[in-house]
């Protein structure tokens, strides 16, 4: 899908991870809202975005990014770190 490739390219990740993070965002916000956020993201990070004030660009991308990188495991996967795990950590 074009937007998965685009997201992957902009965020510096592979398409598989982009697809997974987008699936998380879709679950949180629903398909319709996700489409709107994708449109805003694509606009803000595309050629048209260069003429937008930084504040507007930030708002346009923040809605999607905030929904893709909300939980700690999503953040860790994005930066390529090992997942936090669950019970394993309690053992020390």
């Amino acid at each position, binding site marked *: 899908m074009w937007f998965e490739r685009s997201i992957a*390219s*902009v*965020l*510096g*990740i592979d398409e598989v991870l982009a697809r997974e993070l987008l699936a998380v965002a879709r679950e949180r916000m629903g398909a319709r809202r996700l489409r709107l956020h994708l449109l805003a993201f694509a606009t*803000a*990070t595309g050629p048209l975005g*260069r003429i937008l004030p*930084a*504040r507007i*660009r*930030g708002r346009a*991308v*923040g809605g999607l*990014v*905030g929904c*893709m*990188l*909300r939980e*700690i495991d999503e*953040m*860790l996967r*994005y*930066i*390529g*770190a090992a997942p*936090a*795990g*669950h*019970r394993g*950590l*309690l*053992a*020390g």
Partner: protein
Amino acid sequence: MSEAFTADVAVVGAGVSGLLVASELVRAGRDVVVLERGTRASHADQLAGDASQTPPATAAHNDESPPDTERYPWDYGYAVGGCSLRWSGVAVRLLPADFELRSRYGVGRDWPIGYGELEPFYADAERILGVAGGPGAHTDQPAHPLSPSDRLLAERLAPYVPVPQARPSAERNGRAPCTALARCRLCPSDARWSALHLLDDEQLDGHEGFRLLEATAAARIRVRDDHAAVVEAVRADREHVEVRANEVVLAANAIENAALLLRSDLDDGVAGRNLADHGHRLLHVECDVPTGAGYGASVTTGLSLAWADGPFRAQRAAAVLLPVNAGVELSEVVTAQLAAGVRGAPVREAARWRKEHTLVLDTLYEDLPDPRHRVELSPRRDALGLPLNRITYSWGGSDYVRAAEAQLEQDLGERLADIGGRLVHAAHTALGGHQLGTCFMGAADGVVDAQERHHRIANLWVTGGSSFPAYSAMHPALTIAALALRLGRRLGAV
């Protein structure tokens, strides 16, 4: 129409305090009626979102700020279980010195009781709440392990201890232990203690001595001859309810306890004053070494007491510091990079570096009582016809707090110098979740005495965060629970 109930004890509020008082009384063979403005949602209902998305009419906030002032973000709701439905589970004791601020350091107020008086109730509260890592050495609930960030800081910010938390580390009462998902405010597995657990664990549900009136807001206490004779209440459907009892316990939060006294013409020149909330200041400290951020068994697992007590409290506030294990919010970092025009691998690399090298430290400060911070009654009314609570409160910190913030941040730079620690961001965060004061315990100048008995109305008791005469820097939940147990046992023994 009005419905009437009689009981040995009427308890207002079905949160931590109210249900702990009630459970002690029921165990002692007393008949108890508990009035709760909100309704009950099971843990499953809460997870499904029903509880937060469709609150009953009585659950709407009923406070306002004075005209032309900014609203403070008070965080409370009306529900069976109260604030315990969405707390992080930090269950620390106050320090002995916290009870003696005036005697030791010449500022603030002393509590009319000392740490020793409360100590056995702390231990019992830790047992009931299933506190892991409490100082009472509960062998069945060991402390959660320190996170990598804690281990980096433990020696540098000593004394440093595991955070006692009401998140059992071992199975308890048929509930699974904490699964360490770090979503404590609404625990996915119901391991983190909530007052709803009391209804099952203490077998209150169905007990003949226990009656819970949900969606029933206590409106006023009718006083005759300095005796609390009747609790008048109103239901969501506007039907009136009366509860006659030998003893009346106000066990709602500090805002509602005060408001009920005011609605009952029991101001006495003090009720509602000295409202407080803990000031949080969130610090971002970048380090030259990896901080281990992103890992840990909970939102927080370690607690620095380096600034919790000392003679300095004569001039500046005590503080506690807890690393936030999750570290920086990456969405903010990534969004800022994209807004600045960065694309691709450098975005991710910037995020990775920030995540791995930044400590996020939550700091909490005590403050001195300020009678200007108060609850009053508004001329406007809520959906039930009760006056709105008009709350005068602002957070900018007093000079006492600001001096403490400056010192802590200076000390932090020195203590973390060997790992290149540098403060890159500091911001106040008003959370509004620790409502304290308003009905404080005092020998003669308070609203209630050392036993939490109203100074003028001998059968009226006020418990909870509202009873705190001074605030400490420590999270208040365990002390609120200990005070409730103490009061419940006292009334049960009468």
